């Protein structure tokens, strides 16, 4: 049942749960070092797991030794492995940043309430994402979705001002409605097949019972709601744009990717036949998301709101892959590369927004005038992240969009390629809007508060990584060739 090689995968769930619990016992605001140590260990374990995956193939871990369908199976293949790597890497950088961000000096009202509860909530969030990527059981996935949703909502609300609480409530209600729909889907699957283990479920055939088609629709809509695909994006900008910067970075870079991953996993697997017949729909919504999100980002007054709308737009690219999925694997590679590079770049972008906020106490794009000369590292980090989002070479974003265009042209479908290019131009417009403002000369030079260099350099490191990813991207994508264990 279990491999002779010792399996490290379940530690990726136990470790963050343990440090979250211990940080809570330790007390409000405590536990940063514990969290950093735990996340560093998780990062090492993830790297080891990736190495094992490349040499031994996909892994399966039967929890309790029972095996599906009686027990719950954990499974790792190339797709989940890339997401696990992204999650631990971004989380580690964001946590270093957060430790410097949530100090007593953060007098901008952005940090105080959040500081006290950040570490336990972040631990639960990380455990939820790792558990989601590992799970091969539809009901267990429901529990991980709830853990993820409540942790994210708790983090948004922890700042404690009215706008944050209001955004968190909207997010929570959307999340709960979606979870309810997902759970109903699980109930229908269990009623039809008598099991919820992915490995024991038959792929949906053309003559599948109506209940299974309904389950696919309910679960699909639920995951799109949680991923904030246009037109379900309405909850995302206030939540991601209103939360403290480290929280925004975690949510925009990682949390929405988790539900996208599940949508992709179920669309490629269990519900593949249905997925193929309506694959144009996510593609169409993704295109709409690119245009609508970019347009709103161009109009946004606050920098964090601009970055949040940019997330709405960039999520759209993830869904462009569905009409282009083909045996050549180009579209899948494009989607994964987009998830990875956007994860790194968007975390970096929210972190730079946090630096601007801490330095000036203000968040309006107009207030950025003149910061270029005073915060060069941070501005450069913002620019590098922008390069990835625009899709300029040699960034990871470039690789993703190039693969996507390649996939579209290989099938002679010019329309999708045109959407990708137009989206890149729109992205350039809103990124340059910020950069131009930063270089604008200004009479008023309000005093800038000193800012820990950790904040600037962690943001820079992630932004640089998002660009460099383009150079080594194809090697990372080799992981996708690792199939699931039987």
């Amino acid at each position, binding site marked *: 049942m279990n491999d002779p090689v010792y399996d490290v995968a379940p530690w990726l769930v136990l470790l963050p749960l343990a440090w979250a619990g211990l940080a809570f016992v330790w007390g409000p605001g405590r536990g940063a070092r514990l969290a950093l140590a735990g996340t560093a260990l998780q990062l090492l374990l993830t790297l080891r797991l990736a190495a094992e995956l490349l040499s031994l193939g996909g892994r399966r871990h039967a929890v309790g030794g029972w095996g599906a369908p009686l027990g719950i199976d954990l499974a790792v293949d190339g797709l989940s492995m890339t997401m696990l790597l992204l999650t631990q890497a971004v989380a580690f950088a964001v946590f270093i940043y957060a430790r410097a961000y949530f100090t007593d000096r953060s007098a901008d009202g952005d940090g105080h309430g959040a500081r006290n509860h950040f570490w336990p909530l972040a631990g639960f969030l990380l455990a939820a994402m790792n558990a989601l990527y590992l799970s091969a059981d539809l009901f267990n996935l429901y529990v991980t979705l709830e853990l993820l949703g409540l942790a994210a909502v708790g983090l948004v609300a922890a700042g404690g001002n009215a706008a944050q609480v209001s955004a968190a*409530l909207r997010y929570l209600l959307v999340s*709960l409605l979606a979870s*309810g729909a997902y*759970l109903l889907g699980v109930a229908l699957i269990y009623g039809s097949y008598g099991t919820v283990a992915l490995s024991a479920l038959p792929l949906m055939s053309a003559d599948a019972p109506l209940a299974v088609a309904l389950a696919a629709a309910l679960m699909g809509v639920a995951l799109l709601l949680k991923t904030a695909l246009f037109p379900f994006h309405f909850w995302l900008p*206030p939540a991601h744009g209103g939360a403290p910067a480290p929280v925004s970075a975690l949510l925009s870079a990682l949390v929405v990717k988790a539900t996208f991953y599940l949508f992709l996993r179920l669309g490629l697997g269990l519900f593949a036949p249905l997925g193929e017949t309506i694959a144009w729909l996510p593609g169409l919504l993704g295109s709409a998301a690119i245009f609508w999100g970019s347009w709103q980002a161009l109009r946004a007054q606050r920098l964090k709101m601009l970055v949040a709308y940019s997330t709405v737009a960039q999520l759209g690219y993830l869904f462009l892959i569905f009409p282009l999925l083909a045996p050549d694997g180009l579209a899948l590679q494009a989607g994964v590369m987009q998830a990875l590079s956007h994860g790194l770049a968007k975390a970096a972008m929210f972190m730079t927004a946090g630096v601007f906020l801490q330095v000036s106490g203000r968040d309006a794009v107009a207030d950025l005038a003149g910061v270029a000369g005073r915060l060069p590292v941070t501005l450069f980090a913002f620019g590098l992240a922008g390069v990835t989002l625009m899709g300029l070479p040699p960034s990871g974003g470039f690789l993703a969009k190039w693969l996507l265009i390649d996939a579209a042209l290989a099938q002679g479908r010019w329309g999708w390629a045109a959407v990708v290019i137009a989206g890149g131009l729109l992205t350039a417009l809103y990124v340059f809007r910020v950069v131009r403002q930063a270089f604008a000369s200004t009479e008023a030079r309000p005093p800038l508060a000193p800012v820990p260099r950790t904040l600037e350099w962690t943001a820079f490191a992630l932004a640089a990584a998002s660009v460099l990813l383009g150079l080594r991207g194809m090697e990372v994508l080799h992981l996708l060739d690792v199939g699931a264990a039987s």
Partner: protein
Amino acid sequence: MSSGLVYAVVGVLLFVLGAAGMLLLPHLLRKILAFNLLGSGAFLILVGLAQRDGGVDPVPHAMVLTGIVVAVAATALALALLRRLHALSGRTQLADESADE
């Protein structure tokens, strides 16, 4: 129609009522109650379908126990947020925040 199916059909009605309530009712407390209705509906369907031929299936029972605890946790968090929102702003409804600022 077996008793399991009756439970499942009632569950469908509860689920749909709850979903419509979450979308249509403006007061947040009602939205939270509607969510509980929706959750109970899903639980009834899960258990009802599994024992539609009369036998008892312990697996959905355990799942529903898990689901109930999750629903309690979510409800408590939602109520805490609602109280906080009310204390801060006096509001019990979500403002229409579709505009940017």
